[in-house]
């Protein structure tokens, strides 16, 4: 057990900064509404330190609250495939040679109408990202990067054609949960074809968590700060497990 609380300048003082907008005019009454709202979140104390009108009917608040809530740090389980556990590029290749004895085929794309290629490129392209080479550079892997705006159907067909081991999907735009829609559809299409089991399905993007990805039927999800090493490690270990 390691119970922790927010820390301002003294252990357990519980200080938290908040800011938000309310659809009401600015003024003393608005500040009181903001204060009450913060108290509703269970804060014991709230100081609304700033308010400003955003327009006639909207106002902005900055507040500091004091909470008594806590979490047990020891019982928290990281929802991320953290870099610490990952093998390096060389180790991954060595692992493939040793444990799998054949090239691993991966297919990646940014699906739907999402045009953000930089994320999937960071994982797949030769040059990689932040001094981590991309999967295309892994001698023991065959990596196909289909780019952006790729319909799920096309991605699946391509994976089928090249006999892929893993399908990598990037989703960056999340407004109105469009990513959830796109990701779900991919899994549904695979299931409809009876092929979900054939692939390791990997989702990625700045707002994608592992938890979310798994909920949607993927094997894993990678958020911001992911590198090719992490993804490769996951894929090859999973393949080895399946053998």
């Amino acid at each position, binding site marked *: 057990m390691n119970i922790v609380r927010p820390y301002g300048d003294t252990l357990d003082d519980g200080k938290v900064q908040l800011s938000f907008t309310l659809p009401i005019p600015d003024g003393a009454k608005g500040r009181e509404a903001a204060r009450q709202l913060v108290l509703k979140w269970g804060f014991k104390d709230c100081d609304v330190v700033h308010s400003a009108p955003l327009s006639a009917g909207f106002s902005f608040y900055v507040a500091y609250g004091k909470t008594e809530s806590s979490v047990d740090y020891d019982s928290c389980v990281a929802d991320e495939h953290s870099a610490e556990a990952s093998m390096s590029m060389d180790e991954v290749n060595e692992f493939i040679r040793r444990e799998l004895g054949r090239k691993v085929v991966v297919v990646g794309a940014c699906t739907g109408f999402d045009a953000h290629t930089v994320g999937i490129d960071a994982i797949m392209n030769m040059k990689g990202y932040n001094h981590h080479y991309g999967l295309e550079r892994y001698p023991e892997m065959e990596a196909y990067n289909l780019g952006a705006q790729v319909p799920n159907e096309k991605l699946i067909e391509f994976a089928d054609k090249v006999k892929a081991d893993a399908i990598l999907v990037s989703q960056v735009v999340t407004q*109105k949960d469009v990513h959830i829609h796109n990701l779900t559809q991919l899994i549904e299409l695979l299931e409809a074809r009876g092929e979900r089991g054939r692939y390791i399905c990997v989702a990625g993007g700045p707002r994608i968590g592992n938890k979310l990805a798994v909920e949607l039927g993927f094997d894993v999800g990678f958020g911001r700060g992911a590198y090719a090493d992490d993804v490769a490690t996951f894929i090859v270990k999973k393949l080895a497990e399946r053998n």
Partner: protein
Amino acid sequence: MRAKLGLSQDKISEARELAARICGPVLKFVDGHTSVTVERATLRLAGADDADADGVPVPNLIVDQARDRLADGAFRLYASALARTGDAPERLNRKIAEGLRLTDLPPADEAATARKAQELVNRAESRVRANREFRAARQEEWKDRNHRPLLYLIVATGNIYEDVKQATAAAEQGADVIAVIRTTAQSLLDYVPYGPTTEGFGGTYATQENFRIMRAALDEVSERQKRYILLTNYASGLCMPEIAAMGALERLDMMLNDSMYGILFRDINMYRTFVDQKFSRMLDAWAGIIINTGEDNYLTTSDAYEKAYTVLASQFLNERFAYAAGLPARLMGLGHAFEMDPTIKDGFLYELAQAQMAREIFPEHPLKYMPPTKFMSGDIFKGLVMDTMFNFVSKATDQGIHLLGMLTEAIHTPFMMDRYLAVDNARYVMNNMASFYDEVEFREGGIVRTRAAEVLDRTLEFLRQIEATGLFDAIAEGQFADVKRPKDGGKGLEGLIKKGPRYWNPFEEHLTRTLGLGK
């Protein structure tokens, strides 16, 4: 404008000449072609609007009906139908939406069609002129009430009615320009949706009705604020000329429109893009709409320090294409962006050099300066500080159009409070160092001057190389933004049409004449 960089005027002239030589062959190709969307844009100017029960817009229905005679232009069919039926466009549109096939109607006689054409051109001309005059009058009446640079804020709720709320609030907070961000991938639609819309992703559909709703809302705030609020949308993607036409009719004030964005970043066919682009820009020129070019896109994909010269090269090309379409410099919002890695030592000075260079090379152009986006992260506090530095550079180099950076850039499309914080930041900074431009000089042989000179040199080299290759091939080879786009690849090629000997487009003729583009 005070020149501070000691740039070589000869080199600048050489770059302009190179741009002219690069664009020449492209413009020649353009003149011999039209496209489905150029035709639809023409129809829209003539009055074609409305949509059928499936949402297919009437201009699309007409162009589909005219599919096998598009080399003549689609306008003839519509004008002839109007002449023959005597219908007002609205009535004819409805009939078409309900199933009427114009090709089933016997053609009207040439003279009647020509008269109808003239009438339609005149009607459009007076509507657009009225828009231009209205804008000019307001801007004159409320001159000096806008910020300098203009503060430009986006709204992107996906719902035009929410957009209106956000835009109104933004204007009340101090925005001079409101851009309604388009829904993800509208670029790729080969039609313009019809009517008011409430469902977009990362933005709101560009529709004529949405334009109208937002324009009316902004006119109202303008009156209250005694400040003309400019409205921006995207004449970009597969329908760029149609959107330009809608913008001309609904008095938009700015349009995102880049000569190569669609090709490079949306994989739209290059021939199609160049053809569509020229007609769009003619419309913008006619309607007094400022174009915003998309050089910032180079820097979100490639490194801003390394690839600074691609921005300047693109500015020269965009300028050349814009002149060729009749746009005067004061309507060219050439783009660039504050996108260098924030960990670079003296990055601020390099940004200053780049922005000042653009200012000196394009002195009459209302440069459009984009905020940091690529290196923004979930650290909203750091983001706010980066935006502060950006605001500083913008005012320090007298930019024309200032896109406000959002502290939440890496997280979500702007919340209302994000926008407020952005305006507040910019207003404080820009007032606090208002006279910096006049006050400060850069040391000879210093970082700023040296950097500007180097970027100009590198740009010349790059332009020479493109000239040698030819623009089409240079794009195909991946010389821009590291993406290769095969000449006959990409979307929309099927919508490109070689003009036939009977090609008739009185709107194009009218524009060519009015804009003084006759050969």
